[in-house]
């Protein structure tokens, strides 16, 4: 890996390479460049994850001519595609070194910091939502119970904006979550569920399921689970998967025909 990066830098294929550097036993994101090649000795690959793709997009925004290399896991690759589709960076100027990250039948080691959420405790299991659950598992619950469980989770929020800040595909200049007319920025605790639902709506057609939001969340809100359901809905309605290729999200263009049908009013009349 070190030699590969050295090669890329020395042959001017990239101007800067984003990877991880060992600092006192911790892996921190680091930009290696041609002038400090000796730093490559400290390059280390481990489970640590940061949104290097987001850093790459920031760099590309500031210096469009810069050729950027980065270590890319599967989730980074998906995020890069979403960002390229959103014109945040030019994939021709990006070199990646792929990392075997997710465990599979062929490999059991995994270079990922968040393969599985922490197991939920008894209290969380009885009144909240288990981070390890599948969206399907929540469907049989009555709507009232689903709302109660999600409310418990959302009401823990301390509005640190960690989920948004770490999200590789949250690249808007202006964020609705800080817009005074939509969600008052200074208000604590945040209004629920609007804060989380607004973010969930914005994840539609974007979320690459990297899980960084949930990993960053200090209150252990099952955000990845929520956005997984968002992805499931988008896949079901539009047959679209963010990051699978460079195509645009269905919410980014009008389209030339109506592919969906109206829901009748009397669709479900079960007691809520």
């Amino acid at each position, binding site marked *: 890996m070190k030699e590969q990066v050295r090669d890329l830098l020395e042959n001017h294929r990239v101007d800067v390479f984003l990877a991880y550097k060992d600092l006192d036993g911790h892996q921190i994101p680091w930009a290696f460049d041609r002038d400090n090649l000796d730093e490559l000795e400290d390059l280390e690959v481990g489970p640590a994850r940061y949104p290097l793709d987001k850093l790459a997009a920031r760099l590309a925004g500031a210096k469009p001519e810069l050729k950027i290399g980065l270590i890319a896991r599967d989730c980074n690759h998906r995020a890069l595609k979403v960002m390229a589709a959103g014109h945040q960076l030019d994939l021709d100027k990006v070199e990646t070194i792929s990392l075997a990250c997710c465990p599979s039948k062929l490999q059991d080691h995994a270079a990922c910091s968040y393969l599985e959420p922490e197991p939920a405790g008894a209290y969380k299991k009885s009144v909240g939502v288990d981070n390890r659950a599948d969206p399907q598992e929540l469907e049989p619950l009555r709507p009232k119970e689903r709302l109660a469980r999600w409310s418990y989770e959302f009401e823990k929020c301390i509005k640190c904006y960690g989920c948004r800040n770490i999200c590789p595909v949250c690249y808007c200049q202006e964020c609705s979550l800080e817009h005074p007319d939509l969600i008052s920025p200074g208000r604590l605790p945040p209004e629920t569920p609007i804060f989380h639902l607004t973010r969930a709506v914005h994840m539609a057609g974007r979320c690459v399921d990297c899980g960084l939001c949930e990993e960053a969340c200090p209150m252990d809100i099952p955000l990845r689970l929520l956005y997984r359901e968002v992805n499931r809905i988008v896949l079901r309605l539009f047959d679209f998967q963010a990051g699978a290729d460079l195509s645009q999200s269905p919410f980014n263009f009008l389209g030339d025909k*109506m592919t969906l049908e109206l829901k009748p009013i009397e669709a479900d009349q079960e007691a809520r």
Partner: protein
Amino acid sequence: MAESAFEPKILAFMCNWCTYGAADLAGVSRLAYPPNIRPVRVMCSATVSPHYILRAFQDGADGVLVGGCHPGDCHYLAGNYMTIKRISFLQELLEFIGLGGRLHLDWISSAEAQKFVAVITQFTEKVKKMGPSPLTGEDLNRRLPLGA
């Protein structure tokens, strides 16, 4: 609260070119419909962002209705193609969270005063049956009792 006493608050986003015209025609034709809707005239149903709908629910709406033009009749040619994408997505997301059934989208042209009345009546009845939005009212104790 007895169910009969509950009068739902329904926010209705109406497209200027169709549904709002239908409401106008319903008024001129002296058709009666439930007074539960709070109309908001918009220039196109596609201008109704999910933000507005979420804000409406957060601030105590029991139901939200969006009225747009029939497919192919959009004044801006294709605005309602976007409307149905957004609303369909949001309906499913709200369903997942446990707030399903309170958001309705319909196509009502400016000649369809009868349909307008029918939609308002049916939707009001449905929301009335569902009861107040769980995000409002005195019954704010949304927590699950332990061991439920």
